[in-house]
């Protein structure tokens, strides 16, 4: 069979067109719940329950107003931010030196411990934590929340940084050591600057996982320190499903992580794929 050259080119062009249609269709399917959430958040309860669904309507901001005025969503957002940022910073502060030391001692068995931390069901921490923080009178405090969320971020940060520190050329560190730098100075002046991109990746991922965490906050948070995921869950039961209100709340909860992803996509991808390449 002889294919005419222009016919082949036409077929290739058709192929890449179909491929493009497929790409767009897939992205639409995966974005649909997010788009639908946005749409619902601008609708009234009547519009949300309309059947067939209304696509064209005059958007209302009432749901968002209710979230901030009738419910203390600003406070919940601040709680979420304090806990996620606090646990990420603390994770970096204790995790980076730990990772540096582990990389120095070349302890491969650390990998297994970090895997163990991932395997352990989070619920098994809850009862002992409750007892610890109850004894310390810290139940419902930011300190307790930050410490519990640290168990999410610390393994991620340590794991990613061990790999990064191992990749720092040892000549540089040796030179610093010979020049009389101590371990801490070498760590601060050589290792840290060279691993900044990995540190950013690890921090972003630790922040997102802490922001999204529900289970730990559900048990440890108090009424004043409730982060968003717990707050939105109670929103559901209070309101007897006010669809628009729920969608507005969900949008508020999940928008920050999506914006971070859109802005820092490079760091997120390298962070998540590091697990595949290094593991």
């Amino acid at each position, binding site marked *: 069979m002889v294919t005419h050259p222009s016919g082949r080119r036409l077929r290739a062009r058709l192929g890449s067109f179909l491929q493009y249609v497929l790409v767009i269709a897939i992205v639409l399917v995966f974005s649909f719940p997010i788009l639908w959430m946005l749409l619902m958040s601008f609708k009234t309860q009547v519009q949300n329950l309309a059947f067939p669904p209304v696509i064209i309507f005059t958007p209302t901001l009432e749901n968002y107003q209710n979230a901030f005025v009738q419910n203390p969503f600003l406070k919940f957002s601040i709680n979420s931010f304090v806990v996620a940022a606090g646990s990420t910073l603390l994770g970096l502060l204790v995790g980076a030196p*730990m990772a540096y030391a582990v990389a120095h001692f070349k302890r491969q068995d650390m990998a297994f411990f970090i895997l163990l931390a991932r395997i352990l069901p*989070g619920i098994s921490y*809850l*009862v*002992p934590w409750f007892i610890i923080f109850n004894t310390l009178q810290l139940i419902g405090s930011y300190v307790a929340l930050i410490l519990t969320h640290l168990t999410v971020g610390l393994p991620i940060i340590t794991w990613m940084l061990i790999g990064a520190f191992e990749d720092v050329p040892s000549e540089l560190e040796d030179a610093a050591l010979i020049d009389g730098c101590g371990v801490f100075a070498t760590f601060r002046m050589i290792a840290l600057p060279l691993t900044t991109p990995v540190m950013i990746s690890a921090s972003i991922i630790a922040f997102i996982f802490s922001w999204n965490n*529900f*289970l730990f906050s559900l048990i440890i948070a108090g009424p004043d320190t409730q982060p968003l995921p717990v707050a939105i869950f109670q929103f559901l039961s209070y309101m007897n499903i006010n669809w628009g209100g729920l969608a507005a709340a969900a949008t508020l909860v999940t928008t920050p992580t999506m914006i*971070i992803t859109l802005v820092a996509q490079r760091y997120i991808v390298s962070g998540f794929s590091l697990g595949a*390449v290094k593991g």
Partner: protein
Amino acid sequence: MEFKPPAMLPDLNDWMSTKASGTMNQSVVKVSPFSQFFRNSTRMVRTRNASFVAMMIPAVLIIILMMVFPVLFTAYISLHDWSAATVKSPQWVAFANYEQLLFSDARFHSAFLRTIYLTAIATGLETILGTALALLFHREFVGRGLWRTLLLLPMVTTPVAMSLIWLLILDPSAGVVNWGLRALGLPLGTWLNKTATVLPSLAMIDIWQWSPLVMIMVLAGLSMLPTEPFEAAAIDGATPWQTFWKITLPMLRPYIVIAVLFRLIDSLKTFDIIFATTQGGPGTASETLNLYAYTTAFTYFRLGYASAILVLFFALILAVSLVLIRLRREPW
């Protein structure tokens, strides 16, 4: 331990590696080539190692307080009958909780099977779909970066929040999915509301959220594949189908297995989406081990029994992970 004879200058790499391959043991450090040149080297190295150990202390303390102690406590309390609903202190019952769980607790057995079922569908489809997505998004097309980024969004959304949105989307009477099905003249789904469909529906939410993660990990693998085997295959006239099955897939295997490992561990532990949508219902139709442990601990306050569930649950995840790690290392 092997050492090179002292050279004119200390071989730093050698020094680093001998020390590293040993432990913090001082005797290893004492005979390092460094000591041939610096009289104080032993003390220097010792101080240095002490600094490294000091750097680990804060993290180790946190790990002991927040992770090691809770785990040991859970294992210990699983050997007790302890109800937080009464003032009675924990009673030592040895392995009675485990006996009851393994031999007479039908609810535990169903929860176990549900956990396996949910994990199998979710992880299986995520792996296939994620790999397919990676192959598609590895190809060249306009705006690839943007499309890829948009595809990542489900992964970073808050699971509880999105689960509640799914609850509305999948609502049998007013949800948009059933409206779409009706418009197309297809039979309507019962989704999260019926025993038969609840687990596949939960799996679908998990697949929506986490297939992109598998995609990222496989994409990382694709970008690291060498080009020579593909050129050789092209020269030998292999069809795209043959190239995929005989070259691409085998070379991607380590990346896919790691993605499966991560997804498997997290799918077994799925909690947020179930708790936010069905709370284990209807009835106990979507009660997985994690949910059962949670209910036992925080609704019935049977802390000893819940701890025993968690220990068995942990053993299950560990066993599955170890099998998979072995699969990754060994040739097929």
